[in-house]
């Protein structure tokens, strides 16, 4: 029986590699079934289930939260997204990052003043100590 090489990968890990006789995937235009020697195809995937029917009758199931399907005559690749995106969460995090930058830039002036003050203090202390030593040796 003709088989097709199947690879399911995400940006974080290689999820599964194997062979199958038929692959079902939740394409944007509806579920597609890919058999060996399918014409080359590239399509978006909706969140849903990817099913691989293997030679021995086993079925492998994978839930994906979206992605891309690339089909070549002998190979099917599912480029899976890793998580469902929440636009609001992104925005909140982005805003926080920007505010952090502003705070850090403002902190800089106060940090610099502190550093300068520390340096002057150290210098003054050293001078004082040197002066005391000088006085002691003179006696």
């Amino acid at each position: 029986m003709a088989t097709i090489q199947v690879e399911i990968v995400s940006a974080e890990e290689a999820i599964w590699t194997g062979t199958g006789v038929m692959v079902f995937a939740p394409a944007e235009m509806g579920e597609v079934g890919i058999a060996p020697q399918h014409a080359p195809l590239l399509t978006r995937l909706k969140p849903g289930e990817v099913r691989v029917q293997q030679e021995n009758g086993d079925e492998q199931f994978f839930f994906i939260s979206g992605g891309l399907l690339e089909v070549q005559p002998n190979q099917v690749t599912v480029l899976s997204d890793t998580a469902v995106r929440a636009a609001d969460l992104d925005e909140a995090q982005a805003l926080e990052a920007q505010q952090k930058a502003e705070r850090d830039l403002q902190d800089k002036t106060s940090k610099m003043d502190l550093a300068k003050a520390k340096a002057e203090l150290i210098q003054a202390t050293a001078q004082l100590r040197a002066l005391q030593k000088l006085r002691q040796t003179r006696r």
Partner: protein
Amino acid sequence: MPSVRDIRRRIRSVENTGKVTNAMSLIAASKMRRAQNAVLQGRPYSEKIQDVIAHLAAQPSDDASASQPLLQVRPVERIAVLVISPDRGLCGGMHANLNRRVGQFMLDQGVPVQVVAVGRKGRDFMVRSGSDLRAVFTDLGETPSLFDTVVISDMLVDLYAESEADEVYVAYTRFNSTLSQTPVVERLLPITPSELTGAERVGYIYEPDSLVVLQRILPRFIEMQVYHALLESIASEQSARMVAMRNATDNAKQLGEDLTLVMNKLRQESITNELLDLVGGMAVLEK
């Protein structure tokens, strides 16, 4: 003159330091392996997506590329740089090297540079040098997921799409091997698809159409590149820390040995002096 007791105390403190640095070195080694593994895991996705983009970009122009903002080259008036650096120190010269490289890059540009900083070490450098810091991300941890970096790549894509930056670069430390890490600055946007030879080309069917597919895939590509740069930075950081801590452990051991020699010599001297006193005293008594 320090006493034998003082030196012994010092030796003990040095030995303890050596134990800490040794532990840190071992921990960093295992974290480095994990980070390296994460880089390898992401490679099949990365290669495939680049391949697909190359095919899409090579389409007979039904203006697919022309209408894709992320592929468009513009005259460069402002640029943005994502700087990825460690949050913590004790990793040898790594962050200093990166900061130097980034500093040089920014000076070489003839145009204003905006910075997005990931990691405290880079952030501190940017703050100190008075850069135009747009956003700061820290505490991403040692095992970030792609999800953690999506907000960063989205921000960069927005900067580019809204013409606040005409080019976007990413500066990070590339992991070559345990002993070799290199700071690099690479261009992220606009995307330059790789060229395909005639033999490599595949005539895909695109559903619904190539434009829509391209639109979906380009941001994914940027996300993956940012994620990948972060993973490499982490691997570099851990291996640099491992080496630095190993050196510190060796130094501590050496120092302990040197101090022990000094202590023993001191002990011998004091014993000799006591004996001389004793013998001298006895000689007087016998007379």
